[in-house]
């Protein structure tokens, strides 16, 4: 009898404890996710879902084929790929080098460097975007500096459609390297000092210690950082929205911005926008799976 009462009490407590989180999560995250995928294969254009004057039809993958044939989709995707590349092959290695330098170089004022290098990451990307837009603008300091060395230099950094993405990528390098720096620094400090000591006594050089001790010990962290970089790169929106607005001629657009323009600028096309966001999810999962496979194939030992 007592047993039965405790079971009942247990159940009630469980239910009450999980209820707020589950309710909120399913209402504003899980359900919209399913809703979005459903919308992407329908011709829903807002308004009532059931019992409207024109019933919503499922139209298969025609939204996706429309997206596939839009040149702005490909421009956006290409820019997203650039951002993934600058994160994985720019921010992560640079972050590692900086963390390694601070950890290995026995630098004084460690805390000072750490505070400064991570600083850009805590500023809103909208503010960063506006700031750099001015810095790179024809009226900004970059023009001034360049004209001092090359008189008559003309600033078309952000107005040339073919190269406007480059300043954006540089800003991303400036802003997000600190995140990977922090992650690597925390994990470098976790490596067992005795193992490193042993390597040194065995006469390992700096490079050998790095190659055979430190990098293998960090392989898990490197993969996690890569996954973080990939999913982060695919969602980038604020910085570009504030810095270029996707212009000139939508040449610096990214998938998130393309989706936003489709849904909230001009005549809204919700199904197409949801096809884009569903594609973004799928693409992100695909890249993460590839990263995991690469790790399995070539990776060092797991921790």
């Amino acid at each position, binding site marked *: 009898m007592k047993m039965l009462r405790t079971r009942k*009490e*247990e*159940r009630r*407590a*469980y239910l*009450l404890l*999980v209820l*707020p*989180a589950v309710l*909120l*999560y*399913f*209402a*504003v*995250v*899980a359900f919209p*996710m399913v*809703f*979005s995928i459903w*919308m992407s294969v329908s011709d829903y254009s807002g308004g009532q879902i059931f019992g409207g004057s024109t019933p919503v039809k499922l139209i298969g993958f025609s939204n996706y084929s429309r997206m596939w044939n839009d040149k702005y989709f490909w421009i956006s995707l290409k820019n997203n790929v650039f951002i993934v590349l600058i994160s994985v092959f720019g921010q992560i290695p*640079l972050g590692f080098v*900086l963390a*390694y330098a*601070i950890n*290995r*170089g*026995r630098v004084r004022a460690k805390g000072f460097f750490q505070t400064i*290098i*991570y*600083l*850009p*990451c805590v*500023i*809103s*990307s*909208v*503010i960063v975007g*506006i*700031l750099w837009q*001015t810095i790179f*603008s024809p009226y*900004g300091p970059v023009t001034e*500096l360049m004209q001092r060395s090359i008189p008559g230099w003309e600033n078309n950094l952000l107005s040339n459609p073919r190269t406007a993405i480059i300043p954006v990528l540089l800003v991303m390098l*400036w802003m997000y*390297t600190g*995140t990977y720096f922090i992650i690597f620094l925390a*994990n470098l400090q976790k490596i067992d*000092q*005795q193992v490193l*000591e*042993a390597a040194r006594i065995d006469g390992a050089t700096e490079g050998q210690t790095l190659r055979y001790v430190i990098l293998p010990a960090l392989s898990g962290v490197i993969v996690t950082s890569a996954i973080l970089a990939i999913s982060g790169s695919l969602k980038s*929106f*604020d910085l570009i*929205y*504030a810095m270029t*607005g996707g212009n000139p001629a939508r040449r610096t657009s990214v998938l*998130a911005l393309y989706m*936003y323009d489709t849904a909230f600028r001009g005549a809204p096309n919700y199904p197409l926008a949801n096809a884009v966001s569903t594609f*973004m999810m799928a693409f*992100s999962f695909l890249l993460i799976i590839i990263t995991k496979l690469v790790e399995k194939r070539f990776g060092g030992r797991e921790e």
Partner: protein
Amino acid sequence: MNMVQQTIVDPSKKNKRRKSYLKSSEVGLFSRLFFGVVLTLFSVLSIMPLVWLALSSFKTTQEFQMNRLGLPVNWFFKNYVFAWEIGNMGTLVLNSVFYTTISTIAVVLFSMTAAFAFAKIKSKATPFLYGSFVIGILLTVQSIMVPLFLMANLVDLLDTRLGVLIPYIGLGLPIGVYLCTEYVKSIHDSIIESARIDGAGYFKIFGRIVFPMAKPVISTLSILNVLSVWNEFMLINIIVSRESLKSLPVGIMKFSSALTSDYGKQFAALVIGLLPLLLFYLAFRNKITEGVSAGAVKG
């Protein structure tokens, strides 16, 4: 540990003050120099744009056009007064504080209660429920933005504070539930069992034992949530259009160069906009860097 090290290390090279395996003399002068240069260079690059911004914010727009790089000749403080008034900065800051505080409290509380249930009360529902939260970590706000907009429209929550708060709390939950559950799992069952035997109910155990014991994860989660909610732009930008409800990142878009060429005020507005989080960062920098790396690696 110290003893072991001392027995291994060649006594002639022993230096108790340096705990690291490398003595300064053993890192070549060249690599020390190289590391130092790399660090200094990148630090200067990190901070220069912000220093330049701060200095420029004290120039009038006319002076800025003549003198883009140097120190201000006449320090002009009025930019801040104008920017504060034009930009409605007081309202923006208060709104951001409001959204951030309320959503963080809710995310922490709901994540912790759910985590306690998932980790310490047996139920057949746990694998499914907990699993759906974990999947949600990989989700991005874009993939649910259009549905959220349409749903908010349907229930008349567009342009309301609640319409901003509800999605913020929901989006904070996946990582919150995950971090808290993993942490609560590490609390010994015996502590909870003995409290049960003493006759304590689950809510009492939660309030008196589990919640206080979870302080480290609560501070990590709070920091992650404050940073992400304070800087969130995309969602609130479509939910809210009324001036009085905008947050700092949305409101500050008014000062984009596309819309203004009044640089003095723009710079002052940007400085005002980045100050709150900068102060938060300087006050809690160690906690923040710890929290970010812990959250990132586990997530």
